[in-house]
């Protein structure tokens, strides 16, 4: 009998621990009070709407969007050909290349950010925006390579050979036959990269300047100074955004197959 209760009880407690805090910030973001509190004092949408009004949030949201979309796209632009070379060609030093493009996953982001600051931004005068862009591209590159490589591994390579025998060039075979069949994997890589980049903090810590900082960094700064529920409201919105994207991805392309 005790055993029968043990499993559901464990699950309940663990789920409360994992997901409960999320519900609390959602509730707190609808508070009518001036400070962060739970249970919320009354009900209002004022903090939710404040999120859209605060100028710095709007700016940093735009920066984060730009980085997440641009960084992921350029990581795919670099990663897809590299994955293709590693999976279909006798590539010299193939293991070294694979190590190089997946190394950013091993190194803590804060170190990448610091290294870029120290050797590119300060001495060369690389703009913060460009440094952020490069850092986020590097950060997403390993995910792009991993997911695209997995898709390619699942795609029989004799399809490309069939295309070549029918008269296509190698490059043509890639665009006509390979690309259409790994679209799902590429989309999955894009979503994974987008979420990773958008939520990433440490890599951007040292890379912020006047008017240029990512949204999570902006939130960190804001919550140190202001103790109102707007960060809770913003957190809830972002969480729903992530969950929505991932749910849609799972629904329409079986996201978890690729990740």
């Amino acid at each position: 009998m005790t055993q029968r209760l043990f499993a559901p009880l464990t699950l309940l407690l663990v789920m409360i621990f994992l997901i409960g805090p999320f519900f609390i910030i959602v509730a707190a973001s609808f508070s009518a009070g001036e400070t962060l509190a739970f249970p919320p004092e009354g009900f209002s949408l004022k903090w939710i709407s404040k999120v859209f009004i605060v100028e710095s949030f709007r700016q940093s949201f735009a920066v984060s969007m730009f980085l997440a979309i641009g960084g992921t796209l350029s990581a795919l632009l670099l990663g897809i050909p590299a994955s293709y070379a590693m999976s279909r060609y006798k590539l010299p030093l193939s293991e070294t290349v694979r190590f190089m493009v997946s190394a950013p996953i091993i190194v803590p982001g804060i170190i990448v950010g610091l290294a870029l600051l120290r050797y590119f931004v300060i001495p060369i005068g690389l703009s913060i925006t460009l440094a952020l862009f490069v850092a986020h591209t590097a950060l997403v590159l390993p995910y792009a390579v991993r997911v695209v490589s997995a898709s390619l591994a699942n795609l029989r390579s004799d399809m490309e050979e069939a295309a070549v025998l029918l008269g296509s060039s190698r490059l043509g075979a890639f665009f006509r036959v390979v690309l259409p069949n790994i679209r799902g994997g590429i989309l999955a890589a894009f979503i994974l990269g987008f979420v990773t980049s958008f939520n990433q903090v440490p890599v951007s810590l040292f890379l912020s300047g006047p008017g240029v900082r990512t949204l999570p960094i902006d939130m960190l700064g804001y919550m140190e100074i202001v103790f109102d529920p707007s960060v809770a409201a913003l957190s809830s919105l972002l969480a729903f955004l992530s969950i929505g994207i991932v749910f849609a991805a799972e629904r329409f392309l079986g996201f978890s197959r690729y990740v």
Partner: protein
Amino acid sequence: MSDASYLFLDKLSLAYGKTIAVKDLDLNICKGELLALLGPSGCGKTTTMRAIAGLMTPSSGRIILDGADITRVPANRRNIGLVFQSYALFPHLTVFENVAFGLKLHGLRGEELTRRVEDGLETVGLAAFANRKTPELSGGQQQRVALARSMVMQPKVLMLDEPLSNLDARLRLEMRTELQRVQKESGVTMIFVTHDQVEALALADRIVVMRDGAIEQIGTPEEIYNSPVSSFVADFVGFENVFAISDGRLSTKDGADIALAGTLPKAKGLAWRPRAIELGTGPFTGVVRGVSFAGGTREYVLESRFGSIKAEADAKLPGYPLNSELAFDMPVAAAAPLQRFG
């Protein structure tokens, strides 16, 4: 069939890195011929095909097609068709689009394209499936699409890698006649790979038996079936009883030497099909260790001085019970002499 050599492999050697898959292969194929590459798995059949198609570069040797050296011609300019063992259809395209793929690359458009594709689909009996996506088709239908996709290109040589091995028994028979029909109607030079002797014997004009990356024997189905040159070929085409000859006597696997009646031919070995073994009379005795009924015949496994002997007798004759002792004969006249053993 003309006698002029159409496709000529000249001392062709093929390797994967350091592994040599095919060594010094010489082969002449005539225009319009239906040739079978027969051999056990791993003997280099697929590798040879891939080299002919241009999907792999030979480490040495030449490939001559229709008088031109194509050894260095890229695969997409050879116009050689290959139906892959996996079919390699394009899953994102419809049946029609799959078949149209190569024609479009060669600049065909509009009515001409539609006509050629529809003709191709007609030939393989899939006209009604033009708008299906290929993953929805059965294995046999997929193979027909792959065949049509290659055929519409009017390739100089059409090659098929184990075309029947992924099909169930009934479909296999159907596809076999279909392949033969398509080849005879179009007159295309066709090479197909198989590890199944029955298929090769039934279909081919000529059979090339391969072993460990080299040719073991080339011949018509009759030659291969009746006169294997080596113990390897004999084993492969169903001579169940294969023995070496040393010093004019038959030697068994366990090293016993046995004299046979009459003079042995000048050969390294002798091979008997099961039905060449005479049961009921003869100088040897064996014990029946297995009997199985195979419709028209009964198959026996005898334990004897030769080791295990496979024999066959008409099922209408009374059978020999299990564990009974039995006289039998292995007439030299009924054996195929082997020029190579081992």
